[in-house]
């Protein structure tokens, strides 16, 4: 027997069950975090959940002024400042070149209203419009992304046939010229994408769009509107692992409510836990995440 294995060269299901990263494996009920009195907590561990009942209308379209207000409120609280302008200015300088890494997946893309609100915020920090780009699959050929000094990462949360969930950690995979190299073991080591030079240390803001998340899917042909719901929320933070962890808990809670039983994700989204335990990209332990909830709280699920 290889004794190194016994000395925890790897991670097993039992390690997660014993440890606090269980939540990020999508296996169990999440911990409700009491967010009172933590507004002054370090930005890095903060995750802002903001919801507005009117964010998505009956026609399924986003309400632009409400989306703008949600994002501005969220960054204000995230950076603990008294105006959204100050928040954007704390993230970006006028000489920055900023790429907004979006997601164009057909059935559930990043809403253009969210992209436009982010762009407006970056513009308010003094960044020239010509130095702000929005892209997804074309980032490697996009001059703004090639020269970018800063990134904003934004996409909707959904279940994913191969990674368990498609969230913020996964969204940067298009920065790799060979995304399939990250497929092993259900994309377990996706966090290593964040070490690529084109990405490393550039992502200043992460926004997980929770307006109409997809909470269930089956196999490769994977989208059914029945498995989406109007949550009307955004999760905002600087730590993609922490934001994904909170998002995953909301999806798990929705699955429990919908199916009437604990229904583990398939495959397990262990890339979120590994982003913490193996790759130190961020925090996947709900007990260490300062979740601040703003706005509409009906059926908040966390």
């Amino acid at each position, binding site marked *: 027997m290889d004794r190194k294995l*016994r000395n925890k060269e790897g991670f*097993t*299901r*039992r390690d997660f*069950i014993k440890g606090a990263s269980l939540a990020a*494996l999508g296996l169990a009920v999440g911990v409700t975090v009491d967010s009172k009195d933590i507004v002054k907590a370090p930005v890095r561990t903060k995750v802002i959940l903001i919801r507005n009942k009117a964010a998505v209308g009956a026609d399924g379209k986003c309400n632009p002024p409400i989306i703008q207000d949600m994002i501005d409120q969220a960054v204000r609280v995230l950076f603990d400042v008294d105006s959204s302008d100050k928040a954007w200015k704390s993230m970006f300088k006028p000489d920055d070149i900023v790429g907004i890494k979006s997601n164009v997946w057909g059935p559930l893309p990043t809403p253009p209203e969210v992209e436009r609100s982010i762009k407006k915020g970056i513009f308010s920090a003094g960044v020239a419009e010509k130095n702000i780009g929005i892209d997804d699959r074309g980032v490697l050929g996009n001059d703004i992304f090639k020269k970018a000094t800063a990134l904003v990462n934004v996409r909707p949360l959904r279940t994913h046939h191969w990674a368990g969930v498609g969230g913020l950690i996964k969204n940067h995979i298009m920065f790799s010229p060979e995304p399939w190299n990250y497929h092993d073991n*259900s994309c377990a080591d996706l966090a290593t994408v964040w070490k690529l030079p084109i990405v490393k240390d550039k992502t200043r803001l992460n926004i997980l769009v929770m307006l109409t998340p997809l909470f269930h899917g089956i196999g490769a042909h994977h989208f059914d509107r029945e498995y989406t719901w109007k949550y009307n929320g955004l999760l905002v933070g600087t730590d993609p692992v922490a934001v994904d962890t909170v998002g995953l808990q909301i999806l798990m809670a929705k699955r429990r409510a919908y199916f009437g039983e604990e229904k583990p994700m398939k495959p397990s989204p262990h890339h979120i836990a590994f982003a913490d335990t193996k790759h130190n990209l961020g925090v996947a332990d709900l007990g260490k995440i300062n979740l601040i909830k703003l706005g509409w709280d009906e059926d908040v699920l966390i």
Partner: protein
Amino acid sequence: MNLAEIIPKEVKGWHREGDIEKYDRETIFRYMNGAGEIYRMYDYRGMEVLRMVKPDQPEVKIEMFDMGSPDDAFGVFSHMREGDEAGVGEGSEYRKGLLSFWQGKYFFCIIGGQETEETKQIIFELAKIITGFYKPSNAKPAILRLLPEENLNSGTIRYFNLPSSLNYHYFVSDKNILHLSRETDAVLAKYGESYCYLLCIKYPDNTVSKKAFVDFLSVYLPEVEKAGIYQVSDGKWLAIELMQKYVVIIFDAPNRQFAEALWRQAIAKIRNQ
């Protein structure tokens, strides 16, 4: 494999559109991104895609996958299924405009861009044409016969070879501590009402099975050194056995009695085969 030979140019008012697309083990990602990995976990040899159109109806697409053998055609079907049998080919499922089924060494998906009464009709009509063309294998992987019948949820049976498949359905470890490979046959199935799983693996020889047994215990259950039934956490029991080329593990049994009954039945199945 040639969809052009199977599907007529016109079927009940639907016409073939464009050329047949072909994708091999490397190019499959161009067609379906990361989902290609599901097929590559098996002995996937290649696929063809044929599109059918009719005015005022969403496109219907036929995907045909050569899985190399009936075992692997069943395997990839078992990987994806979640619902009830749809009565097509050797095993099938229909969900909202998507019919998937296997026949012989082939796996098929017929997909309507959107489900309408017309797309549903043409999907089943196309499936009828396809299943009439290929002979059924009339065989499922032999290891399925080792699953005890009592409390078996037959819709959850998964057949596979690789650790990535196991972790997809039930995450065990990021390392291949059970030494799964193309040389192993494995089946995973859910038992009872809770999430209790039975995993049965057949190795190429007794040496590999023993190594897998020892390594699994050492990493996953370091507090024990032999086969048996163990409580691993509140309300979760694990049972494990090594029998010649076979390793059997029961995960997440709700209590000792349930684990022991299933364990004994599985052992008897292997002994009596």
